[in-house]
């Protein structure tokens, strides 16, 4: 079984190589088959590996495969080797399975695009890099995947490169994540300096003995890792790239910017949980960042008009939940939320893609409407996704995962009422904007005629994802209801169990409050948007300033523009021709000037020369006489 691991990333890589080298000359059908097929094969292998893993847990809790030794210098030894344990298994399942569905969807979605091959090449490369990220045995290989997904994200956001704003968005995404990546890299240096290894099992094993809990070094390392995770996972204050990243095609948003890549930060923190557990301050920071992010992004989602931007802000917000869960030590809850979120958010993006395509690339939700009757399949699948997003009790996967986080945010040892209140407010906001989105897009009257119905191949992935959006939650029930905790049992082979407080009130009470907040959000959305889509609410003058503020994502872009971009561009502009160069040119100018002075004396008058010689002799002899 160990030998099978390499094939999981190898097939997407093979697809990438074929498509990038020969893609232009292949027929479109074949491109689609290669592009989607390789990922499907990877998904099948993953399932085989997963079944094997579940049947008999391998020795040491992980399958591992050494491919080749990457580089060995001194005491630094980095291999290209893969490792699949319980945590990785969840991730590779999501990556390959959801990835395969999205690839199938895209094979139809992108059919009319000129650069069909380039699209699939990038997507396959992305899948490969993402798989490497989560399967890596050491942090350097993980960093390879980490940067690789960044590259693919860049390529795919800027896929329609002829529009300048797309390229800007791609650059922005790459740069902001790059800032996080650099912090991560510095974290690796520090980690290596301290522990002398970058092997993940080695680090996890040595760290508890080496670091005292809460020592400044471990805090520093974890904060650096956290910054890396924040960049990739679009957490405050590095979140501004994600809404702009929606410039890419919808399947890209679904795969990269909802289901997989943006959760890399979650993976990193979960993977390095031993280190984080040793640093309580960082854990608190993780929780606070998650809490702030979920609230800030949720508020922004309330007022967006672009359907994909709504979903993007909601993604940021949901990842905020995951960070919150990680921060309070609810490891399995965070991973579970990632699991369900991957299904329903991918579903929402894909469905949104269908809607946008059907309405002639219309992104504004207020130009949509009344699609309930005309596109029933899309409506129902979207409804399943939105229900999961707003965590409707018992009938959606989102409920089970989000409820767990809400519960732990109060009851875990690191949790407190403040975090719980924020999470609760976030739940309310989530329900509100989900309802708004549903009502505005699918109810009311049609404002834009439908241009085409989705192809069958696009509908099937939607239905599959919708099924999982409803059913994925049933493998992990709250403790007080049904005693079925398949997911956390699985994940806790790797991750520690959540430490709870003593003397808690009943869990039912919290579930009731959470459910109430969700329904309150839905009801409020219904009141505001049903029938007359928010006319009153939109045009109230006192609120328009707030609305503008939220719409622009809390003015973070403008702030960064003012703080970093403008000064940077200013500095580079004024020094374009290199100050130092001017110094050397100054020397050259001075010599030229001297030359022009001296050349006056070089006038060809022989007698003047002789007088000069004579004066020199006189001078010397006078000196001789006087001294």
């Amino acid at each position, binding site marked *: 079984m160990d030998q099978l691991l390499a094939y999981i990333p190898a097939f997407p890589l093979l697809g990438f190589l074929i498509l990038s080298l020969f893609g232009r000359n292949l027929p479109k059908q074949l491109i689609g088959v290669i592009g989607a097929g390789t990922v499907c094969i990877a998904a099948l292998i993953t399932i085989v590996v997963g079944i094997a893993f579940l049947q008999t847990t391998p020795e040491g809790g992980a399958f591992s495969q050494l491919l080749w030794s990457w580089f060995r210098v001194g005491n630094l030894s980095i291999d290209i080797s893969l490792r699949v344990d319980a945590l990785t298994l969840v991730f590779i399942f999501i990556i390959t399975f959801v990835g395969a569905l999205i690839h199938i969807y895209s094979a139809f979605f992108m059919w009319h695009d000129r650069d069909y091959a380039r699209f699939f090449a990038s997507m396959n490369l992305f899948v490969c890099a993402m798989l490497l990220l989560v399967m890596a045995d050491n942090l350097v290989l993980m960093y390879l995947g980490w940067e690789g997904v960044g590259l693919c994200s860049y390529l795919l956001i800027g896929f329609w490169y002829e529009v300048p704003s797309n390229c800007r968005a791609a650059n922005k995404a790459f740069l902001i994540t790059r800032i996080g990546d650099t912090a991560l890299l510095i974290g690796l240096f520090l980690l290596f300096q301290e522990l002398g290894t970058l092997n993940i099992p080695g680090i996890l094993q040595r760290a508890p003995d080496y670091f005292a809990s809460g020592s400044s070094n471990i805090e520093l390392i974890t904060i650096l890792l956290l910054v890396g995770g924040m960049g990739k996972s679009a957490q405050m204050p590095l979140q501004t790239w994600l809404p702009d990243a929606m410039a890419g095609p919808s399947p890209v948003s679904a795969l990269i910017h909802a289901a997989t890549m943006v959760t890399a930060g979650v993976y990193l923190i979960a993977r390095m949980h031993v280190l984080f557990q040793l640093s309580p301050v960082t854990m608190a920071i993780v929780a606070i960042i998650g809490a702030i992010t979920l609230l800030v992004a949720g508020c922004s989602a309330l007022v967006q008009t672009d359907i994909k931007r709504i979903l993007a802000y909601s993604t940021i917000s949901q990842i905020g939940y995951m960070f919150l869960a990680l921060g309070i030590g609810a490891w399995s809850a965070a991973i579970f939320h990632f699991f369900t979120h991957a299904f329903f958010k991918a579903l929402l993006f894909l469905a949104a893609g269908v809607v946008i395509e059907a309405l002639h690339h219309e992104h504004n939700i207020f130009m949509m409407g009344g699609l309930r009757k005309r596109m029933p399949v899309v409506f129902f699948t979207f409804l399943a996704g939105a229900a999961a997003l707003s965590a409707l009790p018992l009938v959606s996967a989102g409920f089970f995962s989000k409820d767990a986080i809400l519960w732990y945010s109060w009851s875990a040892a690191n949790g407190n009422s403040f975090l719980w209140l924020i999470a609760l407010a976030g739940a309310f906001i989530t329900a509100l904007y989900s309802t708004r989105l549903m009502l505005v897009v699918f109810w009311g009257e049609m404002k834009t005629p439908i241009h085409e119905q989705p192809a069958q191949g696009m509908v099937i992935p939607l239905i599959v994802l919708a099924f999982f959006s409803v059913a994925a939650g049933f493998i992990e029930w709250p403790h007080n209801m049904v005693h079925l905790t398949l997911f956390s049992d699985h994940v806790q082979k790797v991750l520690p169990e959540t430490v709870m407080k003593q003397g808690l009130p009943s869990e039912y009470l919290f579930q009731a409050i959470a459910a109430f907040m969700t329904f309150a959000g839905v009801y409020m959305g219904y009141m505001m948007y049903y029938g007359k889509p928010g006319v009153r609410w939109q045009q109230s003058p006192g609120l328009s300033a707030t609305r503008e503020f939220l719409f622009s994502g809390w003015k973070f872009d403008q702030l960064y523009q003012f703080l970093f971009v403008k000064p940077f561009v200013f500095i580079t502009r004024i020094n374009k021709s290199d100050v130092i160069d001017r110094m050397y040119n100054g020397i050259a100018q001075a010599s030229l000037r001297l030359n022009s002075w001296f050349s006056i004396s070089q*006038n060809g008058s022989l*007698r003047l020369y002789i007088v000069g010689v004579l004066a020199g002799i006189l001078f010397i002899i006078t000196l001789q006489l006087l001294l």
Partner: protein
Amino acid sequence: MVLLVATVLFTLGLIGVLTRKNVVFMLISVEIMLNAAGLAFVAAGSRWEQPDGQVMFLFILAMAAAEVSVGLALVLQIYHQHKTLDVENLKELKD
């Protein structure tokens, strides 16, 4: 005493070079200066009873001969090209 004579001759030559404008006269004056230098050498040689002074004079002589032949050839050319021997008019180096 001999050196004094040599010095006087030398300075006279120098005056000639400085004051005359005709290239031929300048060459003549240079010859005088070279001759004066030779005189000083011979005097020194005779003072120390060594042959080196006379050897040096021989070299100066040879050099003077070479110099005057080249110099006069140049004078000829200058005259052919510029129709003048006035050094003040021969400032071609000036830009």
